[in-house]
């Protein structure tokens, strides 16, 4: 999309030019994947309960609109993990370890929350930064493994999801201040460490979402405006050319994974430090040896947003929206897990949506269009009109 804005000849609304940009075809591809995912979900609903399928599906699609505060609240952590995955993607790294980084960040934030006594107004800020550092640490390790030992980051980060989760569960359980064994979950965090609420009635939405959006904008600027972003994208697009241009590939791998980890860590901090709508309580964590789902939802968010930070703001909101819808569909007897299935289907189709998209476009063009039109994302070298 940004390619379009930079164009020198802005002659108003040129539909043809827009449909040929990469941003546009990424958008239509995402749309195609979403539509297919939702159709799949609808089919499952019809299969489960034909009478109520329509009502349930309406909840999924529109239900979130009435609870926009909640949508934003739940969008916050997955926006961060989405950024963590998407940012690494830009460099050609698949950071499937957002889950462990998220959990680690959450623990670091919790630790500061429980164990450090800081003045209100400072406490939550420090806790957020602690979360970021926790996540960075957990991104740094796979980065080093990749850069120094050339171990595939996918396996490493999966292993570190488990290692991180076990560590955190152990640390939580062995800390009497944090953990209430009888409830098998953490104690309530002091209010000084809770992120200030945005004050939308009946929802937990807080400044976290603002920070997440600001982070996305900063990342967008880093990617678009800085030499680091320039190197990062160049490496992701063409590793050989980046070597040829003298960029330091290994250092950039480690830095990128650290930043990605930090982003996921912030997601964990935002999730646990959120204020509760019920006075005197807070978010809690249950150490039950399960790796965090928000890390994996980040993959869906990143893919749908085609790894563009601004796109991720919208895709996170969308995923959160249908998740809320899924929860509401419970009212007519559908289980919210249906949304997780839908999200997985969306990722599945996203993986080849671009190909489907261009096949579809080719089909439409050869069927209905004139000869000789150039496809939006044809890979072949096309000569420019002189």
């Amino acid at each position, binding site marked *: 999309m940004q390619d379009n804005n930079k164009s020198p000849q802005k002659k108003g609304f040129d539909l043809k030019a827009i449909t040929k940009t990469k941003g546009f075809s990424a958008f239509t591809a995402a749309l195609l994947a979403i539509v297919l995912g939702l159709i799949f979900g609808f089919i499952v609903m019809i299969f489960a309960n034909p009478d109520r399928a329509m009502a349930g599906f309406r909840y999924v699609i529109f239900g979130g609109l009435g609870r926009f505060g909640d949508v934003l609240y739940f969008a916050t952590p997955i926006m961060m993990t989405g950024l963590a995955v998407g940012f690494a993607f830009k460099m050609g790294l698949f950071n499937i370890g957002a889950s462990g980084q998220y959990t680690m960040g959450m623990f670091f934030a919790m630790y500061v929350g429980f164990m450090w006594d800081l003045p209100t107004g400072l406490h939550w800020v420090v806790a957020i930064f602690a979360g970021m550092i926790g996540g960075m640490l957990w991104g740094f390790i796979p980065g080093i493994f990749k850069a120094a030992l050339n171990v595939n980051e996918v396996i490493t980060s999966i292993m570190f999801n488990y290692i991180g989760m076990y560590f955190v569960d152990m640390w939580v359980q062995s800390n009497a201040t944090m953990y209430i064994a009888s409830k098998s979950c953490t104690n309530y965090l002091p209010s000084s460490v809770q992120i200030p609420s945005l004050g939308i009635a009946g929802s937990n939405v807080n400044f976290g979402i603002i920070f997440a959006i600001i982070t996305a904008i900063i990342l967008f600027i880093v990617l678009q405006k800085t030499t680091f972003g320039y190197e990062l994208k160049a490496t992701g697009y*063409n590793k050989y050319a980046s070597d*040829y241009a003298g960029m330091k590939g290994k250092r950039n791998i480690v830095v990128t994974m650290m930043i990605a980890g930090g982003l996921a860590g912030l997601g964990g901090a935002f999730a646990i430090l959120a204020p509760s709508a019920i006075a005197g309580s807070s978010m809690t964590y249950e150490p039950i040896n399960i790796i965090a789902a928000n890390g994996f939802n980040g993959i869906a968010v990143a893919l749908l947003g085609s790894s563009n930070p601004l796109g991720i703001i919208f895709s996170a909101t969308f995923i959160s929206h249908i998740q809320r819808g899924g929860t509401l569909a419970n009212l007519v007897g559908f289980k919210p897990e249906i949304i997780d299935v839908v999200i997985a289907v969306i990722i599945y189709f996203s993986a080849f949506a671009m190909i489907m998209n261009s096949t579809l476009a080719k089909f439409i063009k050869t069927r209905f269009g004139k000869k000789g039109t150039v496809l939006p994302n044809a890979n072949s070298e096309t000569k*420019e009109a002189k």
Partner: protein
Amino acid sequence: MENYIVEMLNITKEFPGIIANDNITLNLKKGEVHALLGENGAGKSTLMSVLFGLYQAEKGEIRKNGEVVKINNPNDANTLGIGMVHQHFKLVEIFTALENIILGVEPNKMGFIQKSEAREKVVELSEKYGLSINPDALIEDISVGMQQRVEILKMLYRENEILIFDEPTAVLTPQEIKELLKIMRGFAEEGKSILFITHKLNEIMDVADRCTVLRKGKYIGTVNVKDTNKEELSKMMVGRDISFSVDKKPMKEGEVVLSVRNVTVPSKLHKNNAVKNVSFDVKAGEIVCLAGIDGNGQTEFVSALTGLEKMSEGSIVLCGKDITKSSIRERSVAGMSHIPEDRHKHGLVLEYSLEENLVLQRYWEPAFQNKGFIKFDEVRKYAEGLIKRFDVRSGQGPVTVVRSMSGGNQQKAIIAREIDKKHEILVAVQPTRGLDVGAIEYIHKQLVERRDAGKGVLLVSLELDEVMNVSDRILVMYEGEIVGELDPKTTTVQELGLYMSGAKRNTVKETNHAG
């Protein structure tokens, strides 16, 4: 009418932007060794790929024993008894020689491979034709020569009667070449028909019965080898007329800018060194051309020179500074510009815009960034300047995505970038590859302009015309060594061809006389 086993009649094969084969006819007699001669890009490999079913021709037909046949894939070719030894072997490295030979035609009982049966047949074949191999050795452990023998046995095992050899001698030692030619002769005497792609004239004279010559995708002629000589073949291959000449002022020789000493680079393809003990100097104000046939170590040498790969021995001095161990960026800063061989792999980030590509070597300089933020206004201004000066044409100017530009303009962008950056030596590797005449002329002009501006130019080229017209001094590289130093003013294309094909060599004189 002669009795041909294979007739390829009026074959035309086009690729986007280029006609690789333009109405080519080739007839193969039973029991002959038929050489296919031509420069790089003449269309030899394309023609053979059409015969082997890897490509389908747009026009023309193929006949086997007089009957029209359709060859849609290698299976069809195999059924017709056509086998091919590819230039880059198609062998599974972690398999044994035997496994590679039987792959696809495994003798089996209910799916279980009968290895001993296969081994007997392979051993028998290898003894009969003197193709000694170790059937149980892994491909990755054996020499290139033996790998080639495995490829040949693959064809024999399938009882192919038409054998295509695509530049088979490029990777062999002189002894192995002699052996191979003898074996090919033996096949022909036994009634098999051989198609032999090469540009080494000595080999043709030694082994071939007839020779078909291609030039720039066109059919030039077919001659009986015993009625011709090397000079005539060379003339046919290169063409008498030189299509264009380059205006050059007399050379003004300056100081030595690049000094290469005893550079040795290991090969990634085989166990020998790809570059052996190469030494030479390039002075300011001269164009030195590293000429040679593809695959004689030029690529590996340039990788070591520019820092993309490590060399095992030797030293490189640029403007008095030892850059043997310097990083790519340090070499660039020290004054090396590099127009890479593969513009899509190394030279450009195709997804980036033209302006982003134009600063690929310089984005980090204070002129283009401030505290890590790229000054896009400066980049735009700079790009617009370069685009104008170098006449880089594109759909939307600086913001055009480079992937959408034509090859010629992509190359112009690289040249603009590398020439405008501060440099003392310009390393240009096949800068005109795959370009049309207009773009070639333009690029040659730019190289000469660099020379006249007092820079050193190292041109690596496979094109004889280019070598003869552009350079001030020619170094011929053959099998990783520099086998000759020639003056383009006093030498002929034919002579150069002899050096390039290994038929002649002289020792390079030490170039210490600069001062």
